[in-house]
């Protein structure tokens, strides 16, 4: 039995609704979920990307996952709806607050750019309307090389019949192009009644033309590689990462001015390295290399 994940539960301000949603997800056997914050980028003016709400403010008690004795794991995810190339900013500080980063391209040019250059974990596929473009093999293969996943949401298909047709068409078009690899299936609903169990979702994915094993990967191991990819994106290929020094470990004798200065410092104050010798060489070598799918697996083990 593998760990099942649902990486798209839209954020709702309604706490009660979110709680039932999380409880249902845990009951169905999802061990990891991601709360999705959608950011609609506009072309005019600089707009603020919302900060994720801290988890302890959202839920009081995490529900226990079905069939396991561990509580459900909740992550934060940001989806940027891009309509122009400059909406995605590389290395923006706001992105660092989120665990997973996703983009939703609306035109072919943006889709191409998202597959080739954007440093993201997930590329969302439009499912509520007819695709404005055809998928091309070149960008999809490039995305696969880089370990970026494509996401198909199934909730709209449950809602009504025309949506179902669009979902199936677009899902089929995607799976035909990338042979069922690098696809994750997630819910994308904020109603508890529209969630489905992991085995049902895997079976649903078979309607897109995926094989049994690929469909199961879509709800389990591909989601896991999304998480690992997110980690490598944050931490120079998963080898080096920076930690913020905890506030209470600072010397207490110093006066208040110095303390405030220390806390204002960027989180790169302390670096932890796995390989002690030839520090600078490893750093430059690692950061120059793009994090590929193979790299993730080695860093995971």
């Amino acid at each position, binding site marked *: 039995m593998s760990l099942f994940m649902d990486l798209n539960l839209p954020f709702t301000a309604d706490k009660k609704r979110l709680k*039932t949603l999380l409880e249902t997800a845990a009951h169905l056997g999802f061990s990891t979920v991601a709360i999705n914050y959608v950011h609609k980028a506009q072309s005019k003016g600089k707009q603020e990307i919302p900060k994720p709400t801290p988890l302890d403010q959202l839920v009081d008690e995490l529900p226990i996952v079905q069939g396991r004795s561990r509580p459900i794991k909740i992550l934060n995810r940001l989806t940027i709806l891009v309509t122009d190339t400059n909406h995605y900013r590389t290395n923006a500080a706001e992105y660092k607050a989120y665990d997973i980063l996703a983009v939703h391209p609306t035109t072919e040019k943006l889709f191409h750019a998202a597959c080739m250059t954007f440093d993201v974990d997930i590329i969302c596929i439009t499912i509520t309307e007819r695709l404005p473009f055809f998928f091309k093999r070149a960008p999809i293969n490039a995305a696969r090389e880089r370990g970026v996943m494509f996401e198909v949401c199934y909730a709209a298909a449950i809602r009504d019949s025309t949506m*179902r047709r669009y979902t199936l068409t677009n899902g089929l078009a995607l799976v035909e192009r990338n042979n069922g690899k690098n696809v994750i299936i997630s819910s994308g609903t904020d109603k508890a*009644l529209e969630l489905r*169990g992991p*085995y*049902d979702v895997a*079976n*649903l994915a078979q309607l897109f033309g995926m094989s049994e094993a690929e469909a*199961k990967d879509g709800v389990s191991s591909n989601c896991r590689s999304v998480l690992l990819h997110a980690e490598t994106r944050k931490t120079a290929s998963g080898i080096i990462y920076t930690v913020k020094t905890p506030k209470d470990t600072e010397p207490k004798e110093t006066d208040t001015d110095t303390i405030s200065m220390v806390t204002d410092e960027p989180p790169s104050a302390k670096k932890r390295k796995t390989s002690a010798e030839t520090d600078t060489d490893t750093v430059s070598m690692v950061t120059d290399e793009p994090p590929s799918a193979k790299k993730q697996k080695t860093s995971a083990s």
Partner: protein
Amino acid sequence: MVRVKSRYLLCEINISVPSNRLLLEDRPIFSAVKDAVASMHGDYGAAQCSIGFSVKYVNALTGIMLIRCPKSSYRLIWSALPFVTSVELKGRKIPLFLNCLHVGVAGGGELHSGTIRTCQKFLVRYNTQQLHRMLPQCKTTDEKTHVRRAILRSSTKMLKGKEHKDESD
């Protein structure tokens, strides 16, 4: 004589209002599933599920049901199950969803079941698990002793069943 092969799908019925669960019956669920198959797979699907397709068992208290379908078309029927969103019970439309608990999935071969008996065995194990989950949620001591006793009863029954099996072997 060739045996007619069929698959059994053990599903959990999730209803948002728990009191509505007691209204569950097999006939309305059967027609709801049939409608979902028809809307998903058209006339071909509806024809497939008119042979050897039935709702074998519905437990209104725990919200469990068992569907029997021919082996050749069980994937077809299963793929339509997520699209069941409501069932008409006693003239009211009740929103619900079905969650498959026990069916064969690639890679998870241990879930495959071709007989109604393996489904029953799984269900006993599953319900015991549910009791274990209920225990920490109990508020009064009365409830707690009740659940504890139920767990004890189910586990002793399982042990007894095993002994019987050993003897017969």
